[in-house]
């Protein structure tokens, strides 16, 4: 009891913030020369904010559609890690997973992983996935049709909502020392790589930060078990 309304409330709060960015996606997309149906189709079918913004900004700066696809998909690579991370939380049937895949985004992954058991994890996945889907698409339509009705999300401080929300959601992952170590390692790898490699790659490569932490843990365990 009590947990379910909190999952729903968190999902709606996240959805509202994402919706404001949906408006700005609609504005930027139309500004880059996309038609309103094109902007809306991207939010409905691609449904990954970072990928959509990257692709549209390539078009806006005069790049080809092919390089827009390339930059966009580079930002989508991290979803492979999300899918693997959720393996123990979500039901295993292939059909279920293929249907859920469209709603695999930063928000649904983090909210699902924040839950103590897989039943709540599954509920959080759908609450966050569907809430963000609805607000993101509504926001895109409004922005594409009417322009910037809500102002710049940055003026409202909404760009800080994402790191803050993810920080709040991963607290359970940080309870153990190894989790904190893995998060710190991933954070450092990403920070070092941001100036060096194309957008999208720092987060994917940071996933490998889990490897040395695991090795370290095994090494420490072996020493404890040893003579």
């Amino acid at each position, binding site marked *: 009891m009590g947990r379910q309304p*909190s999952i729903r409330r*968190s999902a709606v709060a996240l959805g509202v*913030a994402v919706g404001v960015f949906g408006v700005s996606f609609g504005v930027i997309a139309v500004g*880059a020369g*996309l038609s309103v149906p*094109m902007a809306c189709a991207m939010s409905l079918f*691609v449904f990954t904010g970072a990928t*959509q913004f990257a*692709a549209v900004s390539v078009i806006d700066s005069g790049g080809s*559609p092919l390089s827009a*696809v390339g930059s966009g998909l580079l930002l*989508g*690579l991290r*979803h*492979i*890690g*999300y*899918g*693997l*991370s*959720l*393996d*123990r939380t979500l039901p295993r049937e292939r059909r279920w*997973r*293929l249907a*859920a*895949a*469209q709603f*695999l985004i930063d928000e649904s992954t983090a909210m699902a992983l924040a839950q103590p058991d897989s039943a709540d994890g599954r509920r959080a996945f759908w609450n966050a996935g569907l809430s963000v889907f609805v607000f993101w698409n509504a926001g895109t339509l409004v922005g594409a049709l009417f322009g910037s009705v809500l102002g710049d999300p*940055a*003026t409202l*401080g909404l*760009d*800080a909502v994402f*790191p*803050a929300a*993810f*920080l*709040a*959601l*991963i*607290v359970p*992952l940080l309870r153990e020392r190894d989790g904190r170590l*893995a*998060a710190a*390692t*991933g954070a450092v*790898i*990403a*920070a070092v790589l*941001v*100036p060096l490699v194309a*957008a999208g790659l720092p*987060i994917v490569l*940071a*996933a490998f*930060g*889990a490897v040395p*932490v695991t090795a370290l*843990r095994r090494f420490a365990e072996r020493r404890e078990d040893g003579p």
Partner: protein
Amino acid sequence: MTWPAILALTLGSYALKAVGLVALRGRRLPPFLDEVLVLLPAALFGALIVVSTLGGDRALVIDARVAGVAAAAIALWRRAGFVVVVVVAATTTALVRAIS
């Protein structure tokens, strides 16, 4: 932008989302990789937090977002709920931006 490009982005994004979800489906990996998998989300989200706090155009940028995330961290430490944390982050960032 062209419709074929949107189709390619749709299929590509869906494939990237689906591949990790259907790759294992409960199958166990060798023990070492199994342990890596447990720590994978912490590493990924640690990175996502840094990139969304400090990421600029191929550079690290320190701006009002840092103040917002710091305020959110304090709120979390004081055991604030999710919605409060998010509102604190946005308000702090907006205020710092307004006065700077």
